[in-house]
């Protein structure tokens, strides 16, 4: 029987020759992830097992990235729980402030993700690692606890949607515009319970950072995972970061998909998701006049070096609208250093933006950039739900780093094509 790429990875980890959509399997995990919000619940559940070690100290990653640096006493307590658990269990991949980055940028950078891996994380954006040809998916704290104890998780084998990519992006169009376009097309539950598999000659032109962004937001279409084929771009990234040998799975030529969507990358426009759902998309040409109060550039979706480079290119030698609070947050310490070495941080500060330490803070309305009643933000983050970034009467517009940077300059949602480069 033919299988999709995602199904092949699941079958290999369940030690069976084949799996079928809908089948329930128990599978071995290569990595189990948790953060400072989800892990405390998992740690309490783990304690119920009454065991004194995790299944494999090298295959659990704990990243205090959400309410850190600790935003208040309760958050500090949760991080303390995480730290003490990591110490007691001798967890090898615990990342203290100073080494910490936003988990989904950090784990691939630290070489913890390999092609062919099966990864679960108690964070919905765990689906990011499909960019490297891994099957990765978000779960809750109880699954995390059971996985830390047993090294296994149960899965219902998903069917898949295929997105066949052709052409190349126009200038200022990126992976963010592609995934927003797709979510706008299929809806926030358009891929519910399914895999999103990206294929076609257009894949080669996507940078690895574009692919991380695309897979990151697969969950915003309801998907179980998003995944790219492992090509030279992915292998080059893995060679630079991961010490393990990649295990490359390919979809069968006759694999069955519930539907195939054809997407010509050259036809995509910069795209913005209006409040209050990611599928409420408009192209930049349809945006109209939307006055904004804040711009956020960063997150697990768009806080990588290429995102910062695009923003810096637009902001270089210019000033942001003095009315617009512009917050840039590199996703990891390494990205932060690289941005410093490349002079990007200087460009941001000279332009009147602030540069934050790595944190998920503003994306989920945690801290470091909360919106007041009636305020609007353009954010390169992933969700624009009611109250996501603060007050229930505030609004979030999701966009690429290019659109966000252009909007910071004008104070209105703006087309990067209209900004003159210095």
């Amino acid at each position: 029987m033919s299988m999709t790429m995602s199904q092949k990875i699941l079958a290999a980890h369940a030690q069976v020759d084949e799996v079928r959509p809908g089948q329930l399997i128990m599978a071995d995990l290569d990595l189990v992830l948790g953060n400072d919000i989800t892990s405390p619940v998992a740690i309490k559940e783990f304690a119920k097992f009454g065991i004194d070690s995790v299944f494999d100290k090298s295959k659990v990653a704990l990243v205090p990235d959400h309410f850190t640096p600790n935003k208040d006493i309760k958050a500090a307590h949760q991080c303390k729980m995480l730290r003490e658990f990591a110490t007691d269990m001798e967890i090898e991949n615990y990342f203290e402030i100073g080494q910490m980055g936003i988990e989904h940028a950090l784990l691939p950078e630290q070489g913890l993700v390999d092609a062919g891996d099966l990864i679960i994380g108690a964070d919905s954006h765990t689906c990011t690692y499909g960019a490297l040809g891994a099957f990765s998916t978000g779960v809750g704290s109880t699954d995390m606890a059971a996985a830390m104890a047993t090294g296994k998780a149960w899965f219902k084998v998903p069917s898949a949607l295929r997105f066949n990519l052709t052409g190349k992006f126009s200038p200022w169009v990126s992976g963010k515009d592609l995934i927003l376009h797709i979510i706008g097309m299929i809806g926030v539950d358009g891929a519910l319970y399914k895999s999103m598999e990206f294929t076609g000659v257009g894949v080669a032109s996507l940078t690895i950072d574009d692919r991380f962004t695309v897979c990151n937001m697969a969950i915003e279409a309801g998907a179980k995972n998003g995944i790219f084929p492992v090509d030279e771009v992915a292998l080059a990234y893995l060679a630079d970061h991961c010490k393990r040998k990649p295990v490359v799975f390919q979809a069968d030529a006759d694999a069955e998909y519930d539907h195939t969507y054809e997407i010509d990358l050259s036809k995509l426009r910069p795209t913005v998701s209006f409040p209050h759902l990611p599928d409420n998309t408009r192209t930049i040409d349809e945006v109209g006049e939307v006055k904004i109060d804040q711009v956020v550039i960063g997150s697990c979706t768009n806080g990588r070096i290429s995102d910062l480079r695009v923003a810096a290119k637009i902001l270089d030698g210019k000033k942001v609208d003095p009315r617009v609070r512009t917050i840039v947050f590199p996703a990891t310490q390494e990205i932060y250093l690289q941005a410093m070495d490349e002079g990007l941080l200087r460009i941001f500060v000279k332009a009147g933006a602030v540069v934050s330490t790595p944190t998920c803070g503003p994306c989920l309305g945690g801290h470091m950039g909360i919106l007041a009643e009636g305020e609007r933000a353009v954010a390169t983050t992933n969700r624009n739900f009611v109250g996501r970034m603060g007050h229930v009467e505030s609004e979030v517009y999701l966009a690429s780093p290019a659109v966000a940077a252009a909007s910071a300059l004008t104070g209105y949602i703006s087309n990067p094509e209209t900004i003159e480069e210095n």
Partner: protein
Amino acid sequence: MNAKGKAFRYGDNVDTDVIIPARYLNTSDAKELASHCMEDIDGTFVKNVQQGDLIVAERNFGCGSSREHAPLAIKTAGVSCVIAASFARIFYRNSINIGLPILECPEAVQGIDSGDIVSVEFSTGTITNETTGKSWAAEPFPPFIQEMIAADGLINYLRKGVKA
């Protein structure tokens, strides 16, 4: 195991940010989380909900974040069952794992209004609107999931398995 109570009715895409806003996620205390349940979509929910009541919603209930705090807040607030036309997958999994019964049944959702008294029989998947007298058959949980819910969640279920 059965459920019976008053229905609280919501629309499409009720996300986990409105079920339990992130500003309250600096704790994992179930009672504290429950005291803010549904706050950003229905400010009177916590005041009005009584032990055994049900949430009835349309498509993609529980979309967004993987926070288990969402089903935990709903369960601890006293909700005995969530019925929706469809559920987001992580929410679905989390609910089962913590022992919160949830059923997919688009037809029942269309036939239930806010305030109706609804009963559910989990072994058969039968949903009855006691106010109107109409009944629907939802797909019942497979036995292992029924056992998991009866054991009050995945961990207790696994521990029982270990002991047995």
